């Protein structure tokens, strides 16, 4: 038996060897060349200049490369073709829609508003009333060949009316996330429907007129789906006739967005940008290909794919070339992993326009109510430099303490604010002595000689937990007793913020690039004035910022506002949130931006280069 087993094993082994020996080396012996980059690479970011200093790259002779670039900005699913409905309006979906839509202006990397001359030009012809003349590029066409005309502008304008309600008297005809342009400029774009020139007249002065959406969806597609002619659609829009617009509005609101993974039909999937939607796999990815009819600079690559990837999985995906560009949550962990990859990746760091600050509560149960000296004392003991040094610099080595509420470093206004309004000597560094003096002098209720300060934020938020710890370590020495009262529902309806049942609130505003946005935060009775701050001088100055068309006056008013806010110690700015993005070493033209547009703001310019 034993012998038989061994002989069997030998026989099996011999048979296997024979069978294997019948094999010969596979493939041809010359290793196939790995896919080389075809098409000429454009100027790299180092060579090409940004238009107007912070705009897109000036790549005049850019040619589309044959190849694919894969990017992820997060795991959130794409909303759908029309990203202007409230349900689909988010940064993730807008990153994609920005590539197949166009506008007269866009944000530069520093938040400056830059004209997009590919679509056309806009110039102010009169300040009072504010009148803007727009000229659309004669070559501008939709991807189905229809020229881009005034009709499209009328649709973009006429669909922004939240008070135009449908037959039920509740839901707007156009379920548009923006609903005020019709009220701001009641006459709408005036000009020949099929022409390329129109004028828009505003009722009130509006410094932010450049940010209005005047080019979005194709009017000819909406008209066709509503079963009416473009002329009829335009006149119905100009009349804002809810009955005539019912079908058009219904299509506008729901016709393009059929749910995850469902691209609109070819005749609805129309692009006015450098790319056009090509495929959408539910939960996985959206791909875009160059718009063949695009009249502007050519798209960078023949396929651009957005993948929906969790932040924590991005670094290894980049390393495995499953991704070429990634935009993760900025954490120290991610930075360390990226740095470990060495020269295979480019790490793109910088500030963002989201800024962290501590705001005081001026109402309810606040200990700071009616006690400016106590507020100043607390502001003096907040270790802003230490917070930036310990928590932010590891992510962005260039980070600095922020000293303005109405502008960012790099704005023309920032230096003026810091020089004229910011009391540098008082707040530049922690001043425990002065702080303690003010606390001792204060009449606020004390337990064991200490003033209890309840500071909160929306938890979980590890960074803010660390900030509060640093604040506590410092301010407790000045006679405060800092208590962390953060919770998941800190700012929710019915939470401490809405009940004004807190002393200080640690949070961040995401700056939008608007010039007139400060009034919503600092003016009396505004919904985002959480602490119920009220000051006549601030109200007056901020009213000026909303009603002037003069940038100098606007700046003066903001500086005056800041001065008052520092005097009253509304709250104290701490830092700009750091942004981290990364790209494979073989991808070029990937540039950091401070704005909410994120890393994909110039995605149509990305190309591959030899490593």
């Amino acid at each position, binding site marked *: 038996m034993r012998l038989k087993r061994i002989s*069997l094993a030998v026989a*099996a082994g011999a*048979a*296997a060897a024979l*069978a*294997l020996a*019948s*094999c*010969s*080396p*596979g493939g041809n012996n010359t290793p*196939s060349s*790995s*896919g080389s980059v075809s098409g000429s690479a454009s100027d790299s970011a180092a060579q090409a200049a940004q238009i107007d200093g912070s705009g897109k790259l000036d790549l005049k002779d850019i040619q589309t490369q044959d190849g694919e670039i*894969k990017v992820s900005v997060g*795991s959130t*699913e794409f909303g759908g073709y029309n990203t202007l409905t*409230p*349900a689909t*309006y988010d940064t993730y979906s807008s990153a994609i829609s920005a590539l197949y839509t166009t506008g007269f202006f866009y944000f530069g990397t520093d938040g400056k508003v830059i004209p997009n001359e590919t679509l056309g030009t806009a110039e102010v012809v009169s300040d009072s009333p504010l009148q803007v003349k727009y000229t659309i590029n004669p070559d501008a066409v939709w991807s189905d060949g229809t020229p881009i005309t005034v009709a499209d502008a009328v649709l973009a304008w006429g669909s922004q009316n*939240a008070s135009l309600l449908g037959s039920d008297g509740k839901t707007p005809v156009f379920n548009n996330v923006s*609903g*005020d342009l019709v009220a701001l400029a009641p006459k709408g774009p005036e000009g020949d429907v099929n022409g390329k020139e129109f004028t828009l007249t505003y009722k009130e002065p509006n410094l932010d007129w450049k940010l209005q959406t005047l080019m979005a969806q194709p009017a000819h597609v909406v008209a066709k789906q509503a079963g009416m002619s473009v002329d009829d659609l335009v006149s119905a829009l100009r009349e804002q006739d809810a009955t005539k617009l019912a079908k058009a509005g219904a299509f506008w609101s729901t016709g393009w967005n059929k*749910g*995850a*993974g469902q691209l609109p039909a070819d005749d609805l999937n129309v692009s006015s940008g450098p790319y056009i939607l090509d495929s959408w*796999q*539910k*939960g*996985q990815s959206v*791909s875009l290909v160059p718009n063949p009819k695009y009249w502007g600079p050519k798209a960078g690559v023949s396929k651009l*794919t957005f*993948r*929906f*990837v*969790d932040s924590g*999985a991005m670094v*290894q*995906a980049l*390393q*495995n070339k*499953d*991704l070429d560009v990634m935009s993760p949550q900025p954490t120290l962990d991610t930075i360390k992993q990226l740095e470990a990859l060495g020269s295979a990746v480019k790490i793109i760091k910088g500030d963002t326009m*989201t800024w962290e600050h501590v705001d005081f509560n001026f109402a309810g149960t606040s200990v700071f109510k009616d006690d400016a000296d106590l507020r100043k004392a607390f502001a003096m003991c907040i270790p802003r430099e230490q917070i930036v040094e310990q928590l932010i610099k590891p992510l962005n080595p260039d980070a600095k303490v922020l000293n303005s509420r109405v502008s960012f470093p790099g704005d023309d206004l920032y230096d003026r604010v810091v020089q004229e309004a910011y009391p540098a000597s008082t707040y530049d560094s922690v001043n425990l002595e002065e702080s303690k003096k003010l606390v001792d002098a204060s009449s606020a209720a004390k337990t064991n000689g200490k003033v209890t300060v309840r500071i909160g934020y*929306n938890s979980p938020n590890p960074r803010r937990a660390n900030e509060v710890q640093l604040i506590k370590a410092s301010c407790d020495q000045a006679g405060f007793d800092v208590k962390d009262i953060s919770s*998941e*529902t800190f*700012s*929710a*309806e019915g*939470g401490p913020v809405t009940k004004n049942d807190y002393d200080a609130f640690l*949070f961040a*505003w*995401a*700056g*939008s690039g*608007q010039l007139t*946005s400060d009034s919503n*935060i600092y003016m009396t009775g*505004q919904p985002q004035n959480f602490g119920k701050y009220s000051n006549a001088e601030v109200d007056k100055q901020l009213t000026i910022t909303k009603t002037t068309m003069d940038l100098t006056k606007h700046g003066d008013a903001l500086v005056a506002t800041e001065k008052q806010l520092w005097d009253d110690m509304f709250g104290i700015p701490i830092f700009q949130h750091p942004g981290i993005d990364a790209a494979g070493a073989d991808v070029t033209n990937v540039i950091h931006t401070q704005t909410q547009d994120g890393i994909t703001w110039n995605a149509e310019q990305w190309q591959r280069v030899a490593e």
Partner: protein
Amino acid sequence: MLSFILRRLGISAIVLLLASVLVYFLTTISGDPLAGMREQANDPKVAAQMQARIVALDLDTPWFIRYLKWLGGAAGCVWGQCNLGTDVNGNAVLDQLGSAAASTLRLVLLSVVIACIVGILVGVLTAIRQYSDFDYIVTFIAFVLFSLPVFWVAVLLKEYAAINYNNWIANPSFTPAQVVLTAIILGLIVMLFMGGSWKRRVLSFGVVAVVVGVAMPYFTWLRFWQYPQMGPAVIAVVVLAVGAFALQTTVGFKERRVWLPALISAALVMVVYYASWNLLSEPNWWILILGLVLAIAVPWLLGAWLGGRYRPQAIGAAASVTLTGAFLTIVDHLFVTWPGFMALKPRPISTIGSNTPNFTGNFWETFLDNGTQLLLPTVVLAVVSIASYSRYTRAAMIDVQGQDYMRTARSKGLPERTVILRHAFRNALIPIVTIVAMDFAAVIGGAVITEQVFGWKGMGELFQTGLKNVDPAPVMAFVLVTGGVAVLFNLLSDVIYALIDPRIRV
């Protein structure tokens, strides 16, 4: 039995109902559904978004009324009018649930099957060889795997099995040190596995080390890693070897009624291998399923026809031959496809996604793409389950082996194989069935982390996104499915008990 099942169902329904109230309430208080928008700067658009979110989540209504509304919709599922509500973006949860459940099942099913087979096999082996070197080593490995955090295993696998493998496959080669080291390690593993006398150990170590040491450079010379090949000769040898093994472990080589069907099957495998080549070069799922049916039906008929009183053994031997042959034929087709697949996807194993976006290839190329994407998450899920199954099986087997009826069976003179498989294993399966059933329910819910790490959009993602958005509808859908599966499998394990253990049959 029926009243027992009905009673169980009734109690389960009440438990599910209470769980749903609790989870709904906990979800609504888990955070601020508008938190993300509150810190957006004062864009009027954000106000419109907030309003839309308030309407979408019906936030102006107290939570228990929202819950009752949801319950009304969910109750409709009983008579086929399911309405599981909408998520924050106004998409119907039912649609999402369908694709999420499909995605998770694809992920979980394979790993549970693998984990069952490997885990139970290892458990039985360790129990038979209790306190051997093999047992100690498996115990050690099981505890290591058991205590590994899933996300960490996933990250390690991505690093080595994906990134490093992909770097290596671009230009595969081994240094002499790698060859020697691999040969020694594999030799040691097999040696410990085989056990036995010192002579036997040295022999098994030597044979394995030499074979591996020769095979690695040889396969590299063949460019096997990029151009894998097998060919009919290898298939013939393996199929015959499997047939021989099946005979040797059942009735021996002398019984014509058994070896004849096995041999005919082997011949058929080779005939089908050639005959089906063109068909299988561009098949579809129906053809493959038909092939599988034939690979079971034909040996069954052969065995039934020729087997006589050895019918079961004949069927078993013939079926093991045809199934091996079918499997190898598919592998051969995959081997042939591999170079073309590598050209389409130069880094074959990806770290994210359930497939490569915009991948276009023929059937086998798409099959390989899906397979390579499925590989890592399946391994992650299987590894942890294998560890626990092997431990439970080992404990159950050892417990059974101490029973009196085992001694009786041995003293009757039954062959050891029969004692282990019939008397010990079958009884040991009873507790394992419960664990596997419960584990399956847990794995469906527990794939949350694996899905997130590998970028799959399944049940876990549905749950997580729902919770993040303080959006009860998707969370409740998750609870409904995982809770339902748990109840169902609990019930199923009770029924299987009755099948395995005649004593429970009432």
